[in-house]
Each structure stands twice: as structure tokens, then as C-alpha cells.
């Protein structure tokens, strides 16, 4: 059984939050870092409270650490050496592997995220902006006691209007397909697959491969923990809208191009089930909006192109070992929305999201390396994910169509990586262990 009292709530539940703040911290003085952590542990959301459906909460706190952060808090070298190589190296050092090259290179990242001084992240999700401001103020008063805990940067997030459903700055409905975890009692929506073994997301549990893999040491530090890959992706909304205008003569044609890039209409209706015309009622119905496959229903990609975003990020029945590649996504949008018909104002806006998993190399890095950036995925030869792939204008997008396919050449970069990091998200006992100087309290 999952130890819900010990696992942080972050990957277990998705509270209804419309605002957030991410604080990126550096522990200039280790003892102050530990003291800061000791005082904040009781505020950290636990799985048990969320699972019980305590809806009185208005804010949810999560704390996670980089490899350098664990070291700064006093975890010894022998223990650090038992953590996976990719976590020890960090996201910036793995940039070439996951596709962060050119304009996406860590040299261009913001907020100190590529710096070895990045030690921790505090994630605050709040019911609304007012609650976020109240919580931020409260934390600032608390943190003022610890001048040795420096905020390298912060990022404020707000849901993009209209607020009745989650969507990104391009207008695509989000959160359509999430894996469920065995033992949590949640029945997956049709098409979402069976609940997955907890070990796919939390250390110390059996996973889809069988017995639990070896734990980083000591066990008190690693058990019930997860790894997080953080991505800050700028969305170039003006460039995206220009592209749609260039590739569609009418608003209907432009919507179809937008849908083909994603694999869903911007409403969220899946192209496999609504191939020619948007269907907002289908999009809003969780019993239907994820209920499709590719191998049987769309093998040649006449509905969803083989290189469309959702077909790459979740190939469903057309990839082996899918259950070993699933990830839990959390996050939201930042920056002001760009109104329709307005030229791009140059202000940074985008998605700042976390991918949660038990193995960064097997889950997150595989997705980046193969599904997102392999030009020959599905034998496409010269394509990358149209949104999150690394683009420099030299890749294409093929849209299968009878009698002749349509090929868009020289796809522009709709997104740019502005930062990223690998974090370890410890359980509550592990937070206490860290606060006590990497000793059992």
C-alpha cells in the first residue's frame, strides 16, 4: 500500500489551483537551509490529506531538491553516489541528450536554473491569486529569518482565461490524458489504460517491470520519493498564429492545421473521434474525450498525423512497453495572455511544468530523446514534435491525406526552453532527515 502519510501530495492529487509561485532557492549557509526546511515541513502537503478530499485547503506547498541541494544540506558523498547518474549530472549537463540545443541551450536559460547554486524549489499552488499573495507574504516573513537561504528567482503562474477549463497560451485544452496510480481508487477514464503500479512514480514500490529497483541510500531519504523534471517553455504565440494564417486560407482551415499539429482540436476533441469537424461537447466529456487508439482506429495517421504532439507524447497502442514510459504532469501557464488579433508584444509567456516519475532516464529523458526529438520517429525521417521538439527551421511536418499527403516544410520553433532542472521530491520522513543534517532525527 502507498504510504500516503509520507508521500508529498504533489503527484498524487491535482488540487483546483488557479495561481502558483515557484521559488528557486540556494542554500548559502547550510545550517540556515536546514532550519528553514525544519520550519516548513508541517506546511508541506501530504498524500493522505489530499486523498481524504479535504477541500478546505486553499494552498498547497511542495519542496524538492537538486543534487547540489542534497549535498548542500549535508547528505554525504557515499549516499549521493547511489543516486542515478542523470540526476547527479542535472538537466543542464544533459541538454544535448534531451534536445536543449541552439536557442534552447542552458547558456540562454533564465532565473539561475542552469547554475550549480540552484539547490531547491518551493512550489506553491493556490486556489486564486489573492490566496497566493497571502501565502507568499506569510512565507516571506518566515524566510526573512534565514538570510542564508537566497531566492535565485521566482516565477508566478496564473491560469489563462477563460478559466472554465485548463489550456495553454496557444489555446489548446490541457490535462486530457493522465495516468492513474494503482491503489488510489481512481477509475481511469476510458482510453487512459489501467492504473499503473506505484513504482512507476514513487521509489520503493513494485513497478511495471516487477520488483522494485534498488533504492538510493539511505532508504529513509529515498523511500516514497520521486524525481521531477522541470521545464520552463516559452510559447511564441504571435509566431504560431502567423504560421496558422500562412497555412490556412480560412479560419476553418487554420483550425484544422492547429488540430493536426496537436492531434486534438484546440477544444480538446480528439481528431481520431472527430476527424473533420470540431466537437466541443466531445471535448468536454471525460468519458469519451480520451477513448481512442491509433493502431486500430488510425494506423496511417489520416486523422492524427504520425508526428502530431499527442501521438508522440503518448503513442498508446503503437509503442512497446508504454507502461514503463508514463509520466505525471503538473504545472501551469505564466505570462500575460496575448489577445487575438494583437501582434506579439515580445513579453515572455509560456508553460512551466513538472514531469514526475521514478526514473528520469527511462521516462522523461526517453520521451525527450525519442518521442520528441528523434527525426526518424515512426520512420518520419525529418520531423520533430511540432511544439516541444528542438526546431531551427529545418524540420518538416507531414499530414497524411488521400490521395496525396500534405507536407509543411521548415516548421518554425513555436516554443523555446527558458530553463529546466532535475529535482528529487522526498517523502516527509526524508524531509525531516534532511532538516536534521542528513541524520535520523
Amino acid at each position, binding site marked *: 500500500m502507498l504510504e500516503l502519510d509520507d508521500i508529498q501530495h504533489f503527484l498524487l492529487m491535482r488540487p483546483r489551483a488557479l495561481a502558483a509561485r515557484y521559488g528557486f532557492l540556494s542554500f548559502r549557509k547550510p545550517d540556515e537551509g536546514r532550519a528553514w526546511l525544519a520550519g516548513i515541513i508541517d506546511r508541506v502537503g501530504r498524500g493522505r490529506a489530499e486523498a481524504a478530499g479535504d477541500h478546505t485547503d486553499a494552498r498547497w506547498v511542495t519542496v524538492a531538491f537538486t543534487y547540489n541541494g542534497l549535498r548542500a544540506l549535508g547528505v554525504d558523498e557515499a549516499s549521493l553516489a547511489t543516486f*542515478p*547518474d*542523470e540526476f547527479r549530472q542535472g538537466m543542464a549537463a544533459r541538454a*544535448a*541528450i534531451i534536445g536543449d540545443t541552439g536557442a534552447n541551450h542552458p547558456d540562454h536559460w533564465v532565473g539561475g536554473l542552469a547554475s550549480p547554486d540552484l539547490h531547491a524549489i518551493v512550489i506553491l499552488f493556490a486556489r486564486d491569486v489573492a490566496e497566493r499573495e497571502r501565502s507568499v507574504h506569510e512565507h516571506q516573513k518566515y524566510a526573512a529569518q534565514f538570510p542564508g537561504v537566497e531566492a535565485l528567482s521566482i516565477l508566478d503562474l496564473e491560469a489563462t482565461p477563460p478559466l472554465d477549463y485548463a489550456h495553454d497560451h496557444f489555446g489548446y485544452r490541457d490535462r486530457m490524458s493522465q495516468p492513474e496510480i494503482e491503489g488510489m481508487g481512481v477509475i481511469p477514464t476510458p482510453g487512459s489504460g489501467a492504473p499503473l503500479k506505484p513504482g512507476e512514480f514513487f521509489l520503493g514500490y513494485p513497478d511495471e*517491470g*516487477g*520488483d*522494485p*529497483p*534498488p533504492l538510493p541510500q539511505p532508504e529513509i531519504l529515498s523511500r516514497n520519493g520521486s524525481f521531477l523534471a522541470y521545464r520552463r517553455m516559452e510559447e511564441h504565440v504571435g509566431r504560431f498564429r502567423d504560421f496558422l494564417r500562412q497555412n490556412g486560407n480560412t479560419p476553418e482551415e487554420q483550425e484544422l492545421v492547429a488540430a493536426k499539429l496537436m492531434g486534438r482540436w484546440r477544444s480538446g476533441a480528439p481528431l481520431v473521434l472527430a476527424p473533420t469537424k470540431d466537437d466541443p461537447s466531445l471535448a468536454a466529456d471525460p468519458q469519451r474525450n480520451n477513448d481512442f487508439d491509433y493502431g486500430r482506429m488510425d494506423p496511417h495517421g489520416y486523422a492524427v498525423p504520425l508526428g502530431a504532439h499527442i501521438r508522440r507524447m503518448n503513442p498508446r497502442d503503437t*509503442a*512497446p*512497453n508504454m507502461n*514503463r514510459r508514463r509520466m505525471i504532469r503538473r504545472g501551469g501557464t505564466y505570462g500575460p495572455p496575448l489577445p487575438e488579433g494583437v501582434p506579439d508584444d515580445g513579453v515572455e509567456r509560456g508553460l512551466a511544468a513538472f514531469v514526475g516519475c521514478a526514473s528520469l*532516464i*527511462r521516462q522523461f*529523458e*526517453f520521451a525527450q*530523446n*525519442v518521442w520528441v526529438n*528523434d*527525426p526518424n520517429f515512426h*520512420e518520419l*525521417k*525529418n520531423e520533430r514534435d511540432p511544439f516541444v521538439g528542438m526546431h531551427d527551421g*529545418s*524540420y*518538416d511536418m507531414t499530414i497524411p491525406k488521400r490521395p496525396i499527403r500534405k507536407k509543411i*516544410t521548415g516548421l518554425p520553433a513555436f516554443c523555446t526552453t527558458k530553463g529546466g532542472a532535475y529535482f528529487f521530491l522526498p517523502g516527509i520522513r526524508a524531509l525531516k532527515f534532511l532538516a536534521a543534517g542528513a541524520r535520523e532525527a
Partner: protein
Amino acid sequence: MSNASKQPDWKTPTAIAIPKEGYFTLEHGRYGPIYPRTPACHGFTIIAKIKAGTEADIRAYGTTIEKAIEGSPDALAPLKLHYLRWVLFDIGPDKYFMYQGIFDTDFDKYTEDAIQLFKATGVTTVFEKLEGFPMDWRTNAPAFIKFVREHQCPSFLEYGEYPYVTAAEIKKALALKDAFSTMLDQMQ
């Protein structure tokens, strides 16, 4: 110019000499250096000494795997293979196992899938007969991958009579030929 247009023509037989380290420029994949695609596709050649007295067991697995593929011909499809070759040979008094695969995917990309398939088809049971193979491989994928990479012997020359053609392209061409034959039969 699109990247795809840089691919050479399948009609021109091509040979490539490969530096000692197995690649032309060092490019890191998730698990280590990426070995290049050559006119003879991607591939590996794993050579390892077998544990004394296990030769008969290893040979017997040839039949086991033959039956496994017979029962489930698509079992290895995700690896996009052309050929696998298993060889046992002597070096002095010792017996060595060579496992050579020719395929279309960068091995680094699909390493975990390969391990999963090796498990399913019993290939790993043979690996357990190799000296130095990590016996906790079922839960310790990184150790399995490290063993494979440490025992990989890169080619110093590879040649393709029809270079860079994938198994999928060959199968499509043969299917097309079958379809044309059927069409011609129907025209009689």
C-alpha cells in the same frame, strides 16, 4: 535544405571506415556515446567469455528461441531488426559468445525496450551464462546496460550493398512487388 535530403542513394554501394572508438564525433545518448548509422545500418557486436561448462546450455537456447519466434513472429518487431547472429568460438582454452545485431534504431534510444524483449524471449537467460553479467539485471537496468556497453566491440569497417535502407522499406518494397504480382495475375 531538409536534413532528409542529405541521405545517400540506396543504389550506390558504400563502405565506411570507422575510428577505433566506434564513432566519428563524440555525441552522448542517454547511456553513453552514440554509435553512428552506417551503410550497414545500426548494430552491435557484443563479445563476452562464457562461464565454464555452460556451452551446451547456450546452444540449447538456440532451439528455445527458434520456437519462441515461431510462436510469436512479431515478438522482436519493436527493435526494427534486420538480422541477429549468435556465435560461440574459442580463444585458447576459453569459450566466447558473440552476439551481433543489425537493426534500424539507435540502440541507445531503445535500450530498455530491448532488455524487456530479451527478458520475454529468454535471451537474457543466455546472458546469465556470461562472465561478469549482473545477476540482479531484472531490477537493475543500468547494470545490464553497462555490461552491454562494456562488451560492445565497434566495427572498423561496414559495407552496404544497398546502403541505409531500413527493414521497413525493404518489407514495403516486397509487399508492393507482391501486390503488383497479384494485380498482374488478376489481369490474365
